[in-house]
């Protein structure tokens, strides 16, 4: 009886400490900020391969938060918005991240195959990396320059309703163009639009 009691007590203590730690992390807020070093991460992609931000030391990296169940993401993939950009900027590392709590690597794999993606989808279903970056919507875009600094975060373009079609201003394209031309990013933050990232409780 004493053994059970001490096990239960230590479990309770662990639970309390853990939940306090989690809420401390939440209360502190996201770590990513434009102008500062992008937070590192290590996640598995849809095939289980390990991908770390530090793998891409001297390259530009685009992070794309996505969710196959979100109509904004579905619209962009049908219109090839992200895939066209990823192809156009060949030396930029394009990484999609799925922080949807109920999704698995199988779901990510299905999406990769459906759209024949040349870039991976990283499995962040516990939502830790999403929260550190402050990813709020799908899509939500982050651009990291060659020295590891976050230089853009926000919407993919200026057309949440999808009514501008070909005439939308694509913020990621604009930023990548400027970086490649050696210029500063003029629009470094915009309000992201999309479905809310479906984090775990």
């Amino acid at each position, binding site marked *: 009886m004493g053994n059970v009691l001490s096990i239960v007590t230590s479990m309770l203590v662990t639970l309390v400490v853990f939940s306090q730690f989690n809420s401390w992390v*939440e209360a502190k807020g996201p770590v990513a900020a434009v102008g500062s070093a992008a937070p590192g991460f290590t996640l598995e992609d849809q095939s289980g391969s390990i991908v770390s931000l530090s793998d891409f030391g001297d390259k530009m990296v685009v992070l794309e938060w996505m969710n196959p*169940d979100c109509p904004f993401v579905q619209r962009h993939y049908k219109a090839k918005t992200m895939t066209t950009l990823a192809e156009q900027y060949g030396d930029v590392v394009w990484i999609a991240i799925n922080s949807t709590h109920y999704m698995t690597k199988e779901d990510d794999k299905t999406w990769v195959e459906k759209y024949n993606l040349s870039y991976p989808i990283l499995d962040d279903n516990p939502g830790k990396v999403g929260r550190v970056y402050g990813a709020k919507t799908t899509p939500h875009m982050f651009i990291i320059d060659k020295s590891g600094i976050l230089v853009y975060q926000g919407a993919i373009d200026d057309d949440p309703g999808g009514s501008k079609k070909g005439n939308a201003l694509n913020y990621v394209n604009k930023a990548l163009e400027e970086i490649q031309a050696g210029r500063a990013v003029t629009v470094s933050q915009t*309000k992201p639009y999309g479905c809310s990232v479906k984090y775990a409780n």
Partner: protein
Amino acid sequence: MPWLFVLLCLFTFTFTFSVRGEELPKSVQAELLANVAKIKAGDAFMVGVLLKIDAGWHIYWKNPGDSGLPTSIKFNLPDEFVTGKLNWPIPIKFTRPGNIVDFGYEDSLLLWTVVEAPHELNEDSAIPVHAEVSWLSCQEVCIPGQAKLELILPVAESAEIENSKLFSEWEKRLAVDLGPDTNPFVWRVERGMDDKKSSAYTIFIDWDFIPGRVEWFPSPDSALEIDSTLLATEAKQTRITFNAKILTGQKSFLEVLESVVAYTDQEGKRKGINLVMRLNE
């Protein structure tokens, strides 16, 4: 019974396929209504779209918050009719894991406008009223929706009132402006420390009574981002602090931030006040 097995497989396949997003269920029904059955020349009347939202789903306010898409309506009447602004009832907050806060509605929503009929109208005519509505309805997943609605209203010597209970119920759900007479509070804004990226503000609200569940709903224009909002009410004072930053590269002629302060009054009724504040002090 192999056919039963096949049937079961088909059912499962169809169900999974449809939930996965190929055939999306409709979660919102839209209906175009007026508060008159007949239009009288020179009179003002109301037209609105009543949106009925399935349980567990919600749609968005004019400022959806961190995610989502605002509900939008375009009313179309013949040229001689003057259409007013869209009336937005007081929204509610949806807070999700990851500190995502959205503003919107559940159950049902009436969005309406006041229309002025011209003084000259052919008595034998009928007036077509059109509305194009679009919304984003979210639960665990989000489903965009739209509707093109039409209502034909005949012209008559005297207007016939219709749906008056519905329209007056929803009118009570609007936030009101502060007036010259009795207001539930007095307020002021203080500007705090600026860093190069944003300006901090504090709104002080001093109430006449102890308010219930005070909430703040900002509606900034697209070039302005409001974040780090904190609201605390102690006895008869509410303090709302927030950061306002003009998004880089955006032009903003903004000097004014509109918002709604929602509260529960002493009779337990949900009310709202429209605040308009100058940001460039």
